[in-house]
């Protein structure tokens, strides 16, 4: 009886620490810092609220998945994605910048969905 209690308690402890860790890492992405960076570096092409109007060949970013935006930015930076404009833009960004930007754009209400 006692040993099952110990097992239960330790599972509880592990789950709680894992959840706390996840909450902490989610908070580590600073949406406000992302917005500041976005207004300065991205808005001219991708629109003030992440909905591009200047040129339809630029993507809308508002509401897009954060992990996809982060992947795209890091691929532009590494050169795995070849694009003259985004290549030079992403070079100027740190990893923290990219995480904040991705979190900021993902937090905006957009028009995109998973409609088939």
């Amino acid at each position, binding site marked *: 009886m006692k040993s099952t209690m110990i097992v239960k308690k330790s599972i509880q402890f592990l789950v709680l620490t894992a959840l706390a860790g996840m909450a902490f890492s989610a908070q580590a992405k600073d949406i406000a810092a992302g917005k500041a960076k976005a207004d300065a570096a991205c808005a001219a092409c991708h629109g003030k609220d992440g909905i*591009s109007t200047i*040129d*339809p*060949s*630029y*993507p*809308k970013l508002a*509401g*897009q*998945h954060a*992990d*996809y935006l*982060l*992947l795209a930015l890091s*691929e532009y930076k590494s050169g*795995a*994605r*070849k*694009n003259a404009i985004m290549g030079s833009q992403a070079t100027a960004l740190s990893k923290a910048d990219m995480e904040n930007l991705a979190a900021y754009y993902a937090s905006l209400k*957009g*028009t*995109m*969905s*998973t*409609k*088939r």
Partner: protein
Amino acid sequence: MKWYERRDAAIVGWNFGTSITIIGGIRMRNKHSVGHLAARKSPVGFGALMLPRSIAGYAAAFMIALSYGAQVQAQQAAGGDAKAGADKRSQCIGCHGIPGYKASFPRVYNVPMIAGQNAKYIEAALTAYRKGDRPHPTMRGIAGSLSDADIADLAAYYASR
């Protein structure tokens, strides 16, 4: 011997081996014959080398065929057909149509939402995958199977969602 066909007009032609192609004329789908080969029934198959009824007629027909093809292509470049795109989306929905779907190779992340995205951007992205300017293996394979018209149609379809 090969029968050449476009979507809206059939071009009558004979292909000898791999390098020599003789275009004899063009047949419109609406049964209005612009020109036809004088010796179409020639059993040897060298009909186009024989004297056609009117050489000028053939030249005209050929020019019409060329400009018609160019017109069709220009229409497709100007903007895809969302309705046609709907019929071509079978390769897309298995990932982009499932809420919360994650790509698992080479990295794990949510696949991007594409419904409601700008059409011109979707075209640019698919073209970049096809060309190899974007690294994702699955998307390179899928984009590689698409024509320019397919890409334009799919872009128009998803932008309209």
